[in-house]
């Protein structure tokens, strides 16, 4: 029972971070219909900018977060303007490859500045653990779940209530109609990338705090694919359900069966979902039949 409980908490924490990473991915896909293979690298860049501001420059945590957010917004806007905009209307192959190229560049830039060794970062979240139902529950995982839940709620409220959020949904729904209503589609595209970079930053900082500041953070980006396919490529609630499911599934498989199998189980789920229900649990049924 206690193993189950702690596996669940670890899984939920992983899932919460995955959901944040997937949120950025879905935002970009919804608004601009681009599949972003560089999502993991956005996490990586986010984690390292926070590290640079917090540890290298020694800024207080609030200021460091602010620097991180500003940098993420800037990165998102620059990437959209100079990499993705020239490719509007190109084939999916080109768009996928340009984000893959971008991911190589981002990873290389991080490598140039910080090398490949693991960096030490003082714990932001408390490292203690509490006893609960006979199991040791690490406190920082609970914090991760809480922070992710807060951020995801904030994003959901933003889409539901704010002017810009509604504009984004309008663009996702129908670009032509949104244009005629006076919404600047370009600005929405830039905003989608900026918001995606910010949510990736939060995910990256959380992930770095519970694991370590290292290059491996980027590999988290690939597990985003099973998550979004499970939840539906264009569904924000889907990222939460998908993220938590995949996160917990990985932990259970790793705890009860085989840690190696846990690495590949998301992809097996991915293939099964694609065979049975390609648009995911909550995605819009708009898949092209061939």
């Amino acid at each position, binding site marked *: 029972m206690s193993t189950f409980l702690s596996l669940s908490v670890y899984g939920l924490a992983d899932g919460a971070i995955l959901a944040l990473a997937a949120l950025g991915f879905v935002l970009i896909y919804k608004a601009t219909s681009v599949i972003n293979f560089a999502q993991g690298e956005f996490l990586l860049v986010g984690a390292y900018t926070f590290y640079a501001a917090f540890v290298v420059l020694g800024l207080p945590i609030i200021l460091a977060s602010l620097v991180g957010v500003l940098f993420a917004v800037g990165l998102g806007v620059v990437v959209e303007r100079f990499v993705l905009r020239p490719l509007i209307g190109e084939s999916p*192959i080109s768009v996928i*490859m340009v984000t893959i190229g971008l991911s190589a560049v981002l*990873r290389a830039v991080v490598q140039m500045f910080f090398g490949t060794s693991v960096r030490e970062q003082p714990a932001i979240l408390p490292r203690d653990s509490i006893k609960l139902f006979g199991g040791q529950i690490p406190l920082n995982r609970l914090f991760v779940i809480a922070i992710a839940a807060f951020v995801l709620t904030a994003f959901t409220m933003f889409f539901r209530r704010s002017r810009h959020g509604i504009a984004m949904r309008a663009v996702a729904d129908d670009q032509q109609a949104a244009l005629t209503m006076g919404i600047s589609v370009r600005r929405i595209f830039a905003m989608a990338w900026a918001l995606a970079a910010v949510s990736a930053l939060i995910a990256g900082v959380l992930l770095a705090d519970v694991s370590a500041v290292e290059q491996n953070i980027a590999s988290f980006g690939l597990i985003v694919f099973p998550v979004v396919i499970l939840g539906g490529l264009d569904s924000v609630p889907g990222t939460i359900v998908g993220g938590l499911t995949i996160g917990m599934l990985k932990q259970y498989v790793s705890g009860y069966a085989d840690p190696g199998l846990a690495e590949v189980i998301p992809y097996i789920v991915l293939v099964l979902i694609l065979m049975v229900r390609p648009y995911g649990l909550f995605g819009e049924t708009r898949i092209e039949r061939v």
Partner: protein
Amino acid sequence: MATATGIHHRSYRAELALRHTRAEYARLGLMIMALVAAPYVLGNYWLGIVNTILIAVIGAVGLNILVGFTGQISLGQGGFLAVGAYTSAILHERAGLPVVVCVVIAVLTTAGIGAFFGLPALRLKGLYLAIATLASQEIIIFVVRRWNWLSEGKGFIDVSRLNLFGWEIKRETFEFQWYWVLLVLAVVAVLAARNLFRTGLGRSFMAVRDHDIAAEAIGVNLTRAKVTAFAVSSGFVGLAGALTAHYTETVTWERFTLDVSVLYLAMIIVGGLGSVAGAVYGAAFMMLLPALLTEVSDAVKGQLPFLADQLPAIKNAVFGLVIVLFLIIEPRGLARIWQRTKDYVRFWPFRY
């Protein structure tokens, strides 16, 4: 016929010819001379690089059949290379079959497995297909890593030195002898691909790429075209994988990760999607790039010592930048640049 206004054909036969102008025959002659002279001019280090290029050419031509000509994006290249390499290595080392038989079986096995993993393409397109092939890549590599029987628990397979019907590769002339083997196979692969697209099957691949519904309307069997495209392409890739196994003489899963799939996609993007010549240019370009960067960094080590420390990072950055810049500036790659250069010369002093 080449005139100042362009190349015009007077018969269907002429249009179908592989080479149209005298300049193209002259270029062919020069190329043959360069290829024959290469092993006598180049040192062992560069000849080794040329050999890896020749293997990459086979793989890239195969991938271009699928991605460039049929429009089915695949991130599973690394996995298919692994299938070819492991099949050939295991058959050779454990079953003791002659190399030629092993390689042929490896090609057929990879074609079969490629066709199997191509089945999702019947239902999925574009983005979804990319993600499905990403999953197949990860699953194949997982199987290869964890199935201990494959490497008898060692994690790698040692492959004995190549021996073709008693013609043995010797240590002193290793690269030199391999060069001829690989050159012949690469030329055969390129010619096979060129000719494939002059047949009905090849044309049906292109029809599927250009518009699948229109293709079906004119009588192309979509299911057959897509599955065959996966099989044919994977056959080429399996050959490249088997050759990698015998050339490097060890097989480990690290050689076939997702990065390899991306590298091959980069080759055909840089070279030019939907062009056999482009796949060749792209393979050469992407394999030469890291070697040339190493040369440059060695040359300027005196003035800029920090460059040498940053070399791995710089290689990665240049790799990414090349992909991004090609896609933004010339999405049709080196093949198109070459085409434009030729047109410029032909029409000079006029612009068009």
